[in-house]
């Protein structure tokens, strides 16, 4: 049975080049980058190379990149670090209702620490309510955190409009963008967004897990969450995870190369999948943004009458791997906060699956996946009707 992996927003298969490089780094370049001898120097060179590979995705300034243990830590450092550092200037924080838990739960923590948090709603397409945002920013606002691409339904937030709205009202308010789902898929226009902090992760783009980064605009001050040595400018102490950092650097270079060569773009794959599913005649709905406007790799569909988990396992049985809602939610039996924020009816909430694509998927694969999904939906619907 062919495996078709369509759960690339949960995590991706690391490229063989990455696994190979990480193995070699662990075998050969095992020195501590802080050591003065040659072993340390070669290890430190790896960090520099990785930083240089990542810098062009932001403002081409290496020193604005801090490596973290992943997207969750980058989000925590950005949100809690700025709130703690700026708490004397103001106590008001803003985020959206559809953020990833690694952002939302930071705000919940800060609420307990005496901060005031406003959660801006989204419309049925998943787009932030800009008017509401504009009315919510005040002189007490110190931080606004808005994700670039939503991990569950692929809405792309209009950061180019969001940034100016915030800065016009309160120039000192900082803008943090969770770009874990958009790195190497959409441009990170940090200057147009007027962003101050951007979080990224390697394992969503075929890199290693356990590594991410926080881009910090020069001059932005943060309170560290961990204390120790002066690695990563003291903002993220601890002996650097050199194999993973080297892997992050390599994957970002490889993705650039890969993206320039692909025959079909991610968007083409997604639309082809959708088209084939529509042609099959089964009954389903697209949740969140209209497919052309959403992120190129995320499609959230509801199959009313079915239970998402049952369909998920049924697809699994046929070699197709997808998520129900977001991977982080599937252990809980409550509907996802993101889909709930879209105002979906119960029937759609209970039957929502996320298909997420990668440069590794082919047109043939997505066509087959659509056909298999249609067959599984038909079979289950017939069985459950009795």
């Amino acid at each position, binding site marked *: 049975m062919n495996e078709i992996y369509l759960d690339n927003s949960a995590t991706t298969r690391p490229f063989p080049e990455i696994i190979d490089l990480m193995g070699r780094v662990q075998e050969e370049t095992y020195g501590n980058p802080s050591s003065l001898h040659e072993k340390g120097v070669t290890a430190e060179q790896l960090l520099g190379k990785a930083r240089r590979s990542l810098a062009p995705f932001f403002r081409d300034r290496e020193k604005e990149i801090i490596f973290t243990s992943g997207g969750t830590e980058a989000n925590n450092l950005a949100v809690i670090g700025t709130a703690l550092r700026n708490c004397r200037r103001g106590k008001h924080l803003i985020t959206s209702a559809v953020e990833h838990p690694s952002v939302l739960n930071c705000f919940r923590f800060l609420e307990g620490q005496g901060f005031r948090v406003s959660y801006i709603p989204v419309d049925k397409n998943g787009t932030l309510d800009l008017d509401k945002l504009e009315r919510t920013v005040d002189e007490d606002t110190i931080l606004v955190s808005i994700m670039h691409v939503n991990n569950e339904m692929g809405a792309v937030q209009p950061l180019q409009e969001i940034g100016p709205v915030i800065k016009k009202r309160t120039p000192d308010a900082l803008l943090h963008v969770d770009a874990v789902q958009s790195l190497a898929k959409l441009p990170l226009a940090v200057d147009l967004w007027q962003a101050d902090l951007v979080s990224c992760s390697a394992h969503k783009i075929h890199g290693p897990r356990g590594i991410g980064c926080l881009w910090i605009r020069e001059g932005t001050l943060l309170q560290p969450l961990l204390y120790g040595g002066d690695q990563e400018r003291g903002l993220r102490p601890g002996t650097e995870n050199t194999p993973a950092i080297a892997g992050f650097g390599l994957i970002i270079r490889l993705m650039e190369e890969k993206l320039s060569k692909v025959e079909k773009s991610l968007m083409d794959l997604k639309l082809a999948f959708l088209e084939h599913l529509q042609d099959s005649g089964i009954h389903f709905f697209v949740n969140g943004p209209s497919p052309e406007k959403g992120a190129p790799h995320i499609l959230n569909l509801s199959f009313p009458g079915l239970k998402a988990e049952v369909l998920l*396992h049924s697809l699994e049985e046929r070699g197709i791997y997808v998520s129900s809602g977001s991977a982080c939610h599937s252990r809980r039996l409550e509907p996802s906060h993101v889909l709930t924020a879209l105002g979906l009816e119960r029937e759609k909430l209970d039957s929502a699956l996320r298909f997420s694509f990668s440069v590794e998927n082919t047109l043939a694969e997505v066509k087959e996946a659509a056909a298999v999904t249609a067959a599984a939906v038909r079979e289950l619907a017939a*069985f459950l009707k009795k």
Partner: protein
Amino acid sequence: MNTKILVRYGEIALKGKNRGQFEQQLLRNMKSAVSGSSTGITRLHGRFLVEGPAEKETFLIRQLQRVFGIVSLSPVTETALELEEIKTAAVRITKALPPGLKTFKVEARRSNKKFPLTSPELNSQLGAHLLHTFPGLEVRLQHPSFTLSVEIGYHSAFLYSENIAGPGGLPVRISGRALLLLSGGIDSPVAGWLSMKRGLAIEALHFHSFPFTSRKAEEKAVDLCRHLSLWGNRIPLHLMSITPVQKLLQSAVPSELRIIILRRIMIRLAEKLCNERKMKAIITGDNLGQVASQTLESLAVTEQASQMLILRPLIGMDKREIIRRAEAIDSYDISIRPHEDCCTLLVPKNPATKPKLEAVAEAEGCLDLSELLDEAYNTLETRTGNFIS
């Protein structure tokens, strides 16, 4: 310094000529419970002495508390058969007790009648010595705050102040082997535990209905097996898919009979597995009257699907008692993890509470039962990982 733990086993000493066999099994089970901790076990008259590194005492006690057949345990001080040594040990034990214990008694037992003092003499001499050494203490024979016990054996004396309850029961394996139907719910692990307590070695059979249930429901069964395995035998877990059966029943039998026929098929599959692996009984977590499938009529009709002996250890327990027991053996937290087991899906709204065997047999007559059984049986997978961590 070594720690010494005196292990008592009550019930099995009563079993006449089987006694040797019982003691052998208990010894084997104890050895496997404390293996890997440089521990030695010696057999004394009617009990065992477990000896191991002092820092392992808590570990050893916890492990031994899970060996069925053990009635109680006491960490002991061993001395030569000299009164002065016994007195010194008695003082040391008393000193180590938590402060604030004001009243005590001494309880001496003498299995070695050659020891110069009788038990009452020893009681009074040791008592007097302790009263003299610790002026704040008082003797009280009824409900003292601690009891210092002294056992005079043939080679040495044992002194202790603690008596820790063991799990009781019979050594696992002594009663034979049986198959537990393990659903992943609260009841079946308790049924398995109670069976092990009466000396059965068990294997487990879990029916899943992938894709209608998650693989994570199977992990729950695996975790339950690993957990029950702590109580004395590595429990192999057999997994079978019941999905083809459920699918067929959905279309081929009247809805009110689906559950009872499903259960009869499960029992037949269990019987087949028992025969293949030479097990002598099926154990279920059935409890009278909890749900429609557990009325006396349903249990009877289910039972008639096979020739195998079916044990239902929970039959006399209330739900509350079952939950309390599940909590006590720590299976409860695993059981309540939110994954649906294969019975909670596809349940018809009105299952028959008093099914008639004739009606059930007639409905089954329309099915190609042997082919269906083979199809389900062929999905059998067995996991025998190293459950004891």
